[in-house]
């Protein structure tokens, strides 16, 4: 019991020193929040998810079919602008030629120029193309229904297209009912990334400095053994990661309406992940002799793990080979578990494999860190 008290005392003291550092809150809170806000904004308003896809239609048609076709194109989520000459600026442009009506009335096929500006949203372009094909299908159905009659009189009266087959979409039962906000994606990703970065940097550098300055050596004059010092250091770094996650989640809840699903399970996932990172930080701090090397390694590892693990972008758009490679990243397991909790409203059983893998990683890293832990250079 006394031994545990001493370990907790050293760990608590480490945490107190780290929290007392003026820049601690910049790194653990201010900077990640800046990241969350900016990436949340970009994610919401960026290329990948335009709320309305724009289409400019240059209607040069000299008959009535041009306007009729434009009406058929109009659909929710699509902003159609009709004009009579090609503008200099556009994202997507459809040209209805002067003989558009004449060709339809003569039942002659035609190819309409559909121009996509390179660099414009590919998702919006796909949405527009889909709606264009739907408009064509509607018009052709009406033409078939109209039969062999005179098409110049079609617009004076014709059978209207009816949507007999409809599509309804929903999320799986017992999951979410509202589409998650951009922040629901960016807050967990940023939290995971910054736990990796800060625990390794702060944790690693302080272990190295304490060793170099002889602080660790002097601790052995107290009733602490080397094993106790190691455990205390591990615990200190773990509590730092946990504290950072708590702060970011609290800010997310207060300002961005963050929903984590099951909060206790989400914190458990973060706790096990932070333990693995704490062990990694002690290991790196024990190996390295220069601060710059620790910072460089932390930036390198955090970026590799975050990039592969789905902290920066949704894993669904990643090529299959990269998705497989992502499984080497602890961030992948943490992010996947948080997704299961948030988006699938998952429970204990859903994240158990993730917790098992992260815990196994934490144990392996802790064992390696314990073996390489030195109190003196």
């Amino acid at each position, binding site marked *: 019991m006394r031994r545990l008290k001493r370990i907790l005392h050293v760990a608590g003291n480490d945490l107190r020193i780290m929290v007392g550092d003026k820049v601690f809150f910049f790194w653990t809170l201010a900077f990640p929040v800046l990241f969350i806000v*900016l990436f949340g904004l970009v994610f919401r308003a960026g290329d990948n998810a335009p709320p309305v896809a724009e289409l400019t239609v240059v209607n040069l048609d000299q008959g009535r079919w041009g306007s009729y076709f434009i009406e058929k194109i109009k659909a929710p989520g699509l902003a159609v602008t009709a004009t009579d000459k090609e503008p200099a600026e556009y994202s997507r442009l459809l040209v209805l030629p002067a003989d558009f009506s004449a060709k339809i009335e003569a039942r002659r096929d035609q190819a309409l120029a559909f121009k996509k500006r*390179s660099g414009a949203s590919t998702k919006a372009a796909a949405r527009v193309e889909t709606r264009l094909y739907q408009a064509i299908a509607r018009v052709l159905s009406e033409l078939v229904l109209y039969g062999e009659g005179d098409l110049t009189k079609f617009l004076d009266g014709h059978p209207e297209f009816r949507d007999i087959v409809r599509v309804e*979409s*929903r999320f799986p039962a017992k999951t979410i009912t509202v589409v998650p906000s951009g922040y629901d994606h960016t807050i967990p990703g940023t939290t995971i990334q910054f736990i990796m970065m800060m625990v390794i940097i702060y944790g690693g550098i302080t272990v190295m400095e304490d060793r170099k300055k002889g602080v660790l050596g002097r601790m052995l004059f107290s009733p602490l053994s080397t094993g106790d010092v190691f455990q205390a250091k591990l615990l200190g770094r773990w509590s730092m990661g946990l504290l950072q996650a708590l702060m970011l989640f609290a800010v997310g809840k207060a300002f961005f309406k963050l929903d984590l699903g099951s909060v206790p399970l989400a914190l458990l996932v973060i706790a096990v992940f932070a333990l693995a990172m704490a062990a990694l930080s002690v290991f790196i701090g024990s190996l390295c002799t220069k601060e710059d090397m620790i910072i460089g390694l932390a930036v*390198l590892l955090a970026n590799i793990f975050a990039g592969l693990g789905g902290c920066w972008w949704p894993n*669904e758009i990643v090529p299959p080979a990269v998705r497989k490679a992502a499984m080497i990243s602890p961030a992948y397991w943490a992010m996947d578990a948080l997704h299961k909790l948030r988006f699938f409203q998952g429970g204990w059983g859903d994240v158990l494999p993730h917790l098992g893998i992260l815990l196994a990683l934490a144990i392996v890293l802790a064992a390696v860190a314990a073996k390489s832990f030195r109190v003196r250079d």
Partner: protein
Amino acid sequence: MRRLRLVLANDVRRHLKAPLAILIYMAVPLFMTGLIGVIFGPRTEGRELPSIPVLVVDNDKGLASKLLVGAFDADQLKKMFRVTVTDEADGNRRMAGGKASAMVVIPRSFTLDLLEAKPVTLLVVKNPAEQFLPDVVEEFMNTLAVMLSGVVQAFAEEVKGVRAMLDLKVDGFPWEALGPQFGKAQKKVVAASKYLNPLLIRFKTEETKAAGAGASFTRADLFSIILPGMAVMFLLFIVQTLMRDIISEREDGKLRRMMTTPLRPIELIGARIFGGWVMGIAVLLVMVAAGTLVFRVHWGPFGYFLVLGAVASFWTAAFFALLHALVRNRNQAGALSAPIILAFSLFGGSMMNPEAMPKAMLAVGVLTPNRWFIDGAALVREGRFPLASLVVLFASGLVLLALAVPALRRRTSV
């Protein structure tokens, strides 16, 4: 001058003896560029997205549902979707585990309802953790629904006739009555074929460029856009590491010992700033070489880029010289440098595409070296001389230097 050269040569030798930290800093931008390029670069197979896993639950198992499932088998769609036909229980289980982007559920009596031209609803269950792929499936199903609606509507009379006959026994089936129905249907098929083959209205899609834009976009182009941003971010990290000698030598007493030699403070300051500048250029050149060899990055006229890199490196050395003249100790320097670099990189466009940034963020970005370097590198890529970037970086670098030198002289005096 000779002493300055000696200090400089000694510094370079010292850093080359333990280059691991610098090498790690150089590896990070190359790795990040590679990863972003692999994920977001144009794919060789010409598709923007990976194959989409879709589950199809056919509760109808009729003619129409089979046609619908078969639609996924068309040549182009085969590459786009990876379809697994399953039952509802298994489909729900897989969706709950996030194993597919979407599940399409075809309702019971789908075929019969279509034959009677009754409204039917196809259900698309979307993976809640995914943001893009489920929408692609939904849009595709919407298109299929429109096409099916069109077919059902066009052949409503004929299919109603067929539907009525389906309820009869085979021996009581009035086969002869099918004749007129088939006759009508044939006429419509012939009429429809006029519109469908070739398609009466189709598209000729072309990708256009805004005025001044380059040729077609390749993965190497993407690397060429990303790497300069990453390179300048890690140039800042590397040069601040090198410039930290200014403080560490004061802290560990080396400076005091050096000042007992004939070395003058201005020579030491000159060597440190010049060293940071030269090492910065060297680091940039290594990244240029690696970028060219590994990612086939196109930098534009090398001379222009070299001038831009030299000026950016000069700015960086002058900036960190001033910063290290103002801070009290190494810890303070470390605590301030990294947040400043990250803020520069975030607002300056090293971490995200400036085009995607909010306007306020873009305005702040103008105050960062990253932004000017990235803009300059973009101009060089187009073969243009980056005059504005050079003037801004060089002029502000001179101001920083003018402030740094007297401040450092005060800190160097023992």
